[in-house]
């Protein structure tokens, strides 16, 4: 019997949509809170958001079958408002253009960007709202699935939201380093963001695992698979150590050593967050166990 139908494309989609949405939120936060010294970060975040979500969405579309070969079928995707995918399609089709428009506006690219610049604040409010919706939706998408008890918990959207924010911030910081490596010293303030998001992510993940162990036999089977079963090496190495502990420690050091940490370590911490974020999505999806029906 088909235990799971989703594979790497959906994992990638969940990751990229989260990271893109997070990058957008980072950009907006920088632009609103510290427009003077975090300009590069805001630019990087805004430039990354649209393409990441768009590529993620492309993964989602590539995972379709008949809907891919006969694209007109995709018009049906907004038919059922009780389906999270319908909501996702609506949110994404609004968010992607807003994200591109925002990138254009913030960076004053093309005529459109210069015109949109006038409505920057509007774009930030609407886009920020849609970005949070996108990040949260990726979690809700799997949280409403009662065919996989492990996913079926309100902790899932919180976990995905926290992960989306930290991976988004990491994307923005790496982007900023690419645009202008000298800004890396100014970024230490943002390490605090990582500390906060990773704390939330770690706590929620811990809660999810512990609660799953008692929630139902199937959820427990999934949790066990992660902490001591077949997926445990990946879980401990990639999600816990690389994805949370290492960047968490580095970010604390970075924050207190303000501007003195080696730039490779700064970027390294962000890369760790990205690896952890992708691994988290993959392991959550692949550890799904169907209800024991007989």
């Amino acid at each position, binding site marked *: *019997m*088909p*235990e*799971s*139908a*989703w594979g790497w494309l959906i994992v990638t989609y969940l990751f990229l949509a989260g990271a893109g949405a997070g990058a957008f939120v980072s950009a907006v936060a920088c632009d609103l809170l510290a427009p003077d010294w975090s300009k590069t970060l805001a630019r990087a975040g805004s430039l990354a958001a649209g393409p990441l979500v768009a590529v993620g969405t492309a993964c*989602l579309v590539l*995972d*379709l*079958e*008949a*809907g*891919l*070969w006969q694209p007109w*079928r*995709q018009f*049906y*995707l*907004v*038919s*059922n408002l*009780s*389906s*999270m*995918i*319908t909501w*996702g*399609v609506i949110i994404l089709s609004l968010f992607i253009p807003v994200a591109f428009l925002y990138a254009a506006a913030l960076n004053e690219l093309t005529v459109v960007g210069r015109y949109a610049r006038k409505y920057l604040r509007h774009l930030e409010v609407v886009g920020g709202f849609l970005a949070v919706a996108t990040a949260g939706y990726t979690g809700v998408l*799997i949280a*409403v*699935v*009662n*065919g*996989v008890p492990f996913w079926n918990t309100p902790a899932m959207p919180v976990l995905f939201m926290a992960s989306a924010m930290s991976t988004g911030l990491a994307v923005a910081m790496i982007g900023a380093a690419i645009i202008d490596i000298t800004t890396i010293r100014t970024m230490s303030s943002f390490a605090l963001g990582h500390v906060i998001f990773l704390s939330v992510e770690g706590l929620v993940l811990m809660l999810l695992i512990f609660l799953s162990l008692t929630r139902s036999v199937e959820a427990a089977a999934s949790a066990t698979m992660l902490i001591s079963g077949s997926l445990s090496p990946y879980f401990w190495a990639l999600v816990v150590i690389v994805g949370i502990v290492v960047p968490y420690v580095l970010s604390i050091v970075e924050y207190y050593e303000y501007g003195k940490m080696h730039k490779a370590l700064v970027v390294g911490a962000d890369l760790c967050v990205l690896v952890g974020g992708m691994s988290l999505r993959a392991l959550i999806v692949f550890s*799904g166990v*169907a*209800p024991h*029906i*007989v």
Partner: protein
Amino acid sequence: MPHYGIAIDTTKCIGCHSCRVACQNQQGLKYDQSFNWIKEREQGRFPAFGKEFVPVQCNHCQDAPCQSVCPTGAIYTSPEGIVLVHRERCVGCKYCIEACPYKVRIVDHHEGIVVKCWLCHDLVAKGGEPACVTTCPTQVRIFGDLDDPNSRVSQFIAKHRAQPLRPDLNTRPRIYYKRS
């Protein structure tokens, strides 16, 4: 309008898989595609050892999780209570496969859509019974109108207090099981 359902007597199932292959032929499925599975479950230690074969197919839930998560509205319930897939609307997102607690939906990669047991709607519409019901050597399945208290299936369910699989999932299936 009748509401169709099936009662399954697992105490008669010998695990011969006739239902599976009859269904594959009826529906034109390939050898590795199926709408029917038989789960084998062993229990206890000798002399209290026992084994049970549990045939599993689409449960035609009254609160079908697949139907509520389908973004394109391709999954719907017929007036007779049969959960159907509209093959022209399905995009193949596979969300329904994840949502189905019974894991009885498969991807038909040939057409790129998700398919499953449709209770041989074509045969039933002509007054027949599904292929899995008619082929079974030990007559494990009883098909009929759940709304009619005098139908064989209703009587069987009432007599043996047959239960659906995992009633706690609140999907309200139309397939009932007599176990042990």
